[in-house]
């Protein structure tokens, strides 16, 4: 407590020594670049309302760049709007728009490279190529921003929030849409993605590669081109997220590829073509998730080892579980399945006969996709019934021996 107090005092004295430079259209200093040259470290530059044309603003002093009533900083599609080249910078309350786009360079609304402790807060980004781009930068915070892109094609667009080779980042409460990937992580560690809304991006809501020990909590990923893709990572926590309405031939709520030792719980998968698609993903705990009205709730490849599904609710999905072989190395136990046809005579809350979530028809439709037109046909129901009682194609071990009779409600 004492130390905290002293630190606080130190911070305040430092703050008091700093001066404030005001930038406005009718002021003595009327553009940001001039203010930057006059500023010292720890100064604050206050930008009043107005439109400022950026000729590539490079921040090379540890300052606070604060906007009042959202001044507009316009790159006119010619330059990178703001480049942060020094640590300990705060950018707050600006509208940053129209960065240049390029096929060869990663040009961004705000680019943060090789620096630490940068905060981007309460900003709005419109029509930038990349919105916020972080590379080799640790302890950065991207909080409460609204990011809107106008991406048309994957090849000619950039990501909303892009992190490459960073540590301890916090991405919180941002709203991202219209970019290629909403949030992109590559070689990022010990970072958190919390409470963001990523929707209508043309590729993925969240894209995650080689990034270990991260957590993403309570985000919403809705109607993105292909959902959320998480690959080649270890020790990931995904809790309380919503994956909604990711529709399309290859779309899924959550794609897991080579993810190990991770934890997926209390997420809601609603109306996705595929809820979870898992390949080569080992030792993952799927707990207390809701799968509601998806085409395929879970597609789990036989390459997955020791995954554990329990206390999940599977409600009204067209197919509950699909797999691609008769091998199964995962455990399903104590889940609620709305397709369960059994009974509970001893009234212990668990069905007396095991539930087989893999339907013969899902196996057939995997091989011959045209048969989808026979969905819910009486003939198909009869096929599924025979398979349910005399399994030939579906994995013998992919059963829930203790299916819940009532929905799991915590």
């Amino acid at each position: 407590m004492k130390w905290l107090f002293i630190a606080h005092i130190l911070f305040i004295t430092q703050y008091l020594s700093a001066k404030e430079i005001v930038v406005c259209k009718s002021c003595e200093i009327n553009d940001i670049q001039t203010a930057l040259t006059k500023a010292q470290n720890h100064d604050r530059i206050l930008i009043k309302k107005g439109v400022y044309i950026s000729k590539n603003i490079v921040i090379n002093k540890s300052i606070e760049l604060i906007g009042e009533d959202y001044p507009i900083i316009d790159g006119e599609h010619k330059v990178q709007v703001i480049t942060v080249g020094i640590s300990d910078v705060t950018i707050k309350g600006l509208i940053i728009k129209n960065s240049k786009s390029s096929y060869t360079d990663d040009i961004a609304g705000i680019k943060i490279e090789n620096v630490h402790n940068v905060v981007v807060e309460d900003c709005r980004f419109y029509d930038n190529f990349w919105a916020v781009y972080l590379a080799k930068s640790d302890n950065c915070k991207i909080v409460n921003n609204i990011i809107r892109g106008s991406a048309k094609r994957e090849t000619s667009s950039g990501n909303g929030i892009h992190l490459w080779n960073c540590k301890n980042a916090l991405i919180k409460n941002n709203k991202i849409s219209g970019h290629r990937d909403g949030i992109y992580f590559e070689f990022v560690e010990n970072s958190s993605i919390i409470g963001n809304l990523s929707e209508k991006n043309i590729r993925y809501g969240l894209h995650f590669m080689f990034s270990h020990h991260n957590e993403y909590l309570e985000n919403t990923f809705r109607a993105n081109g292909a959902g959320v893709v998480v690959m080649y990572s270890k020790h990931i926590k995904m809790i309380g997220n919503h994956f909604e309405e990711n529709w399309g031939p290859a779309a899924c709520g959550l794609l897991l590829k080579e993810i190990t030792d991770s934890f997926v719980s209390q997420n809601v998968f609603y109306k996705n073509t595929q809820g979870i698609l898992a390949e080569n993903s080992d030792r993952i705990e799927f707990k207390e998730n809701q799968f509601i009205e998806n085409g395929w709730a879970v597609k789990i490849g036989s390459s997955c080892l020791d995954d554990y599904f329990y206390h999940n609710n599977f409600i009204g999905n067209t197919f509950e579980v699909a797999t691609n072989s008769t091998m199964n190395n995962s455990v399903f136990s104590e889940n609620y399945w709305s397709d369960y046809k059994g009974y509970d005579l001893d009234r212990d809350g668990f069905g007396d006969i095991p539930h087989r979530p893999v339907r013969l028809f899902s196996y057939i439709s995997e091989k011959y996709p045209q048969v989808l037109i026979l969905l819910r046909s009486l003939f198909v129901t009869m096929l599924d019934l025979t398979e349910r009682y005399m399994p030939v194609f579906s994995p013998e071990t992919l059963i829930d021996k203790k299916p819940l009779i009532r929905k799991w409600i915590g």
Partner: protein
Amino acid sequence: MGDFIFPVFFLISFGLFYLGNEASKVIASLINIVLFILPLVSIVFGTMYFYNSREFMELMLAQPINRKSIFLGKFTGLTLSLSLGYVLGVGIPFVMFGMKDYSEIATFLTLILSGVCLILIFVAIPFLISVIFEDKVKGLSASILIWLYLSVVYDGLILFMIVTFSDYPLEQPVIYLSALNPIDLARIMMLLKIDMSALMVYTGAIFKKFFGSSMGLGISFFSLVLWIIFPLLAGLKLFNKKDF
């Protein structure tokens, strides 16, 4: 007949809502019942009704009433009571419990509409059969055979065809083949409402595009109308000529 259909569907839908509470799930269960029970009940009742009222019909024919109005009157009477029983039986529980948003109302209307179409078709068919066959047992077995063919065998043949000719692009033929079967048509209309997420995979998207387009809708509607008109007119024609 309606006084049988009404309690059956009322109890089923009521029970489903009472146990399940979720309208989407109730609709999914109801579809199976509608596609299975409704054609069977209609076709069996239609056959029985025609044979059982044969003596009365002969009496009517002795009166100065033209045959057309007797035949169509019987048809209208039966379909009206069946449809009323069905619409009320399914509708009352829905109005009581369900229909929270626009999409659920749309699904409900599709369910009602395709159900009524199935009733019309599966009453028209046994009327034709009953005119053709003098013998009640023959007529009944023919009716059930047709039901079995349309609801089970036909889909089995399509599946067989898809698996056998899987090397060829079969999406279009499969679409037209299923548009020829009224039960399949009713089923696909419902699929487009409740299984959209699953249908969004590649081939499903083709089906959706076809049945969602105005041409697809036109063909489906035309096929349904043909299924009502053709057996009805053929039955009427034979009935007019029939020597009682």
